[in-house]
């Protein structure tokens, strides 16, 4: 998305992927704002980065690991108290449309 300007359709697509329900007015507003943000970021993309390693993380760290040792899990009653609905000690969710991606 470095060369083409962000369209209203692009904004609607991204909103749908993120499951954000936008009104027509909001779509106009955010499409315009996002386009400005992307144009700004395009300045970075214009730089010549030949021979520069991509940055995966801002801190110069690697191999941050923990030992394979169990730690206590949460209390189930406390966990399920946060669920909108529960059945059989499990989270109850509405009928799922579509398939596992």
């Amino acid at each position: 998305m470095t060369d083409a300007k962000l369209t209203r359709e692009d904004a609607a697509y991204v909103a749908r992927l993120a499951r954000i329900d936008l009104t027509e007015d909001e779509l106009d507003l955010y499409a315009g704002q996002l386009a400005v943000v992307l144009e700004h970021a395009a300045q970075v993309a214009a730089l010549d980065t030949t021979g520069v390693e991509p940055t995966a993380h801002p801190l110069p760290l690697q191999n941050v690991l923990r030992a394979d040792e169990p730690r206590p899990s949460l209390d189930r009653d406390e966990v399920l108290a946060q669920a909108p609905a529960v059945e059989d000690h499990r989270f109850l969710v509405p009928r799922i449309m579509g398939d596992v991606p």
Partner: protein
Amino acid sequence: MTEQPGSSAAGDGGWEPVIGLEVHCELRTETKLFCGCRNAFGDEPNTNVCPVCLGLPGSLPVLNAMAVDYAMRIGTALHCEIRPSLFHRKNYFYPDMPKDYQISQFDEPINVNGWLELPDGSRVGVERAHMEEDTGKTTHVGGGGRIHDAQHSLVDYNRAGVPLVEIVSRPDIRSSLQARLYAAELRGILIATGASDGRMEEGSMRVDANVSVRRPNDELGTRCEIKNLNSLRSLVRAIEYEISRQVDVLESGGTVLQQTRHWDENEGQTVALRSKEEAFDYRYFPEPDLVRVVPDTTWQSEVAAAVGPMPADRREKLAALLGPDGATAAKADQIATVVENGLDVLMTKAVHAGIGAPLALARTANEASAEPDRARALDTAAYTALLRMEQDGSLSATQAKVVLADLLDRGGDPAALARDHGFEALGADSLSGVIDELIAAHPNEWTRYVDGDDKLTGFFTGQAMKATQQKANGKAVAAELRRRRG
């Protein structure tokens, strides 16, 4: 590609199947990939969960070192290049994934460019073997458990965050049989590395198949991905069904659509899942809460040392015990069974203790392999003692199998178990008496035997078994018959 033993001569009216397999295996760690919750199958629902694997705000993942270790063992066993790797977020919405993204390795996987050699001599390339986290387990309620008819679904997050390695083969497989060989050999390798228990029935090893067909040497055809393959048998059946479905479509002038298809074991067919309006856009980006994994050479050589002998080497060792006989197809099958069930140590110890290799192989590949978990726990001394009783003739083969069943069932002293069954070796005197009676009762058969018809040995042995309620030893009967014939 060169012609290999595993490749099919393009059957099915000149169409060549092209198959690649994606295998997910759960790692045998104590804890999950990014948190200290237990990685355990079959626990009470939602008891192994915490803020990290529930995706609660503010929680942070920390990578499990043992999971990296196991992933590298798998890579080493599959002759992969082990590389510095990075985790990405794979974004999608589905209730089995509470964070709304799965942490997975994308364009920088830990293992790349390996291969696997199958028992038939063919070689299948391994494109990559990367780490990722498993999802929660969803149960659909109502509508007979089928997703589209369900009223609602229930989610257990115990499995969410369990470490997985996904092994992606190259599309080098050319038949359902070769696919089966690959999956079985890979399973053996996973178990041998200690990284996974490879149990397909518990879902700790899951196989998806990418299948397409083409005219030999043409470009690759459009592929379909088949899911829900819960056994090696389903894998073979589903691939065969899918090949003939695609050939039918093409031969009737149609086009194969790129689809994900679900294998229905009861109907024996693959069914297209809901057609996708658009390709999934997972918006991968580097996981900002995790840093790069860069295994140094010390760690890599520790891993290489921890990887046990692979099934192919173990099969070779057992075959060597049998001498030239070990190369026959029947023996090779039995050897493969022994290795698959992890019983090579049991068999080898028996042979080293003086049991003939063919007998040790037969009992280990048949009776012991019928109860592999119990056989692995068997006292090797007791096992050897039992085989020795069969070998020296104090138990017949039939009796030895009965005692072995007991031994597998509850352990104990084989001699005592044999006595409990009344399996006392028939003394030479009483055997002689039994044979006297048999000769008197079957004079014509005896004459033919004396005249050189050796097939009658089986007849007399059978009769002797019957007369003694299986207490007679077949070899002893045959020896006595030969002695009398002179």
